[in-house]
């Protein structure tokens, strides 16, 4: 486990930022080799988790901090940039970016909101048809691991993991130069 995230994002708890964060998560996970479906699922899980921090943690205040950290466990391909800049020199084919060694993506969402018992953050019975109460269920459905915990100082931490299944190498698998 590598404890420096590859990407760390701090936003304020304004729902206007949701779409940007979703797209960031979608695109970086795609470049790390996850299938389109998995990328959509991860961006959905992040959206649901941030919505919950805004609504339940911060009572809809729009200016409180939320941290999102992305870890590519197993590492990440480093595209071969030789030949970029187009100065005509020979260069090998860049790693397509879809074929990274990434084994799993770990997404950690932290806040400074009120601390709650992690056991109270749970999905309801879906047979009871009513609005609301779907976010935590969706998060559990799409992610392989989901863990809520109190942070040492204040606030909560949500850790979500999605494994990259090997046949899901998407895009081209070009020969390397």
């Amino acid at each position: 486990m590598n404890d420096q995230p590859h990407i760390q994002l701090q936003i304020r708890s304004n729902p206007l930022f949701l779409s940007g964060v979703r797209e960031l998560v979608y695109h970086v996970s795609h470049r790390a080799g996850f299938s389109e479906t998995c990328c959509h699922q991860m961006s959905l899980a992040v959206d649901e988790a941030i919505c919950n921090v805004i609504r339940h943690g911060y009572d809809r205040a729009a200016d409180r901090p939320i941290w999102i950290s992305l870890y590519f466990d197993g590492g990440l391909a480093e595209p071969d940039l030789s030949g970029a800049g187009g100065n005509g020199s020979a260069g090998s084919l860049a790693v397509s970016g879809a074929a990274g060694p990434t084994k799993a993506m770990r997404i950690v969402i932290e806040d400074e909101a009120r601390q709650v018992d992690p056991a109270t953050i749970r999905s309801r019975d879906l047979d009871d048809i009513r609005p609301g109460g779907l976010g935590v269920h969706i998060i559990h459905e799409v992610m392989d691991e989901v863990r809520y915990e109190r942070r040492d100082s204040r606030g909560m931490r949500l850790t979500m993991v999605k494994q990259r299944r090997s046949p899901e190498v998407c895009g081209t698998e070009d020969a390397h130069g």
Partner: protein
Amino acid sequence: MADHSALQIGLRRQGRAVVISPKGDVDLTGSPALGVELRRAMSEAGVKVVVDLSGVPYMDSSGLATLIAAMLAAKKSHGEFAVCGLSERVRTIVQLAKLDRILPIVASLEDAVK
């Protein structure tokens, strides 16, 4: 790149139906406006309210909650309600929430306004 502007909500009559066509992502920022339009349309007696989601590339659970609220309100007032035009991606989240057999989803807008 798809247009990810804030939600715009179209509204038109088609026969006995009121067709509500959100355009954009139905997330926490867009769902409240959709809810308002739905409640407004449903306050009129005898109409069938149809939500055409063909302009919605993305929806999260706040959008689902809004659709469920509309469905329950329609049931209560013996009104009619239908949803159509789901993209693959929106269909997936409906399924994740196990709502695919609960929401009145019809195959096409033509079927919906019938």
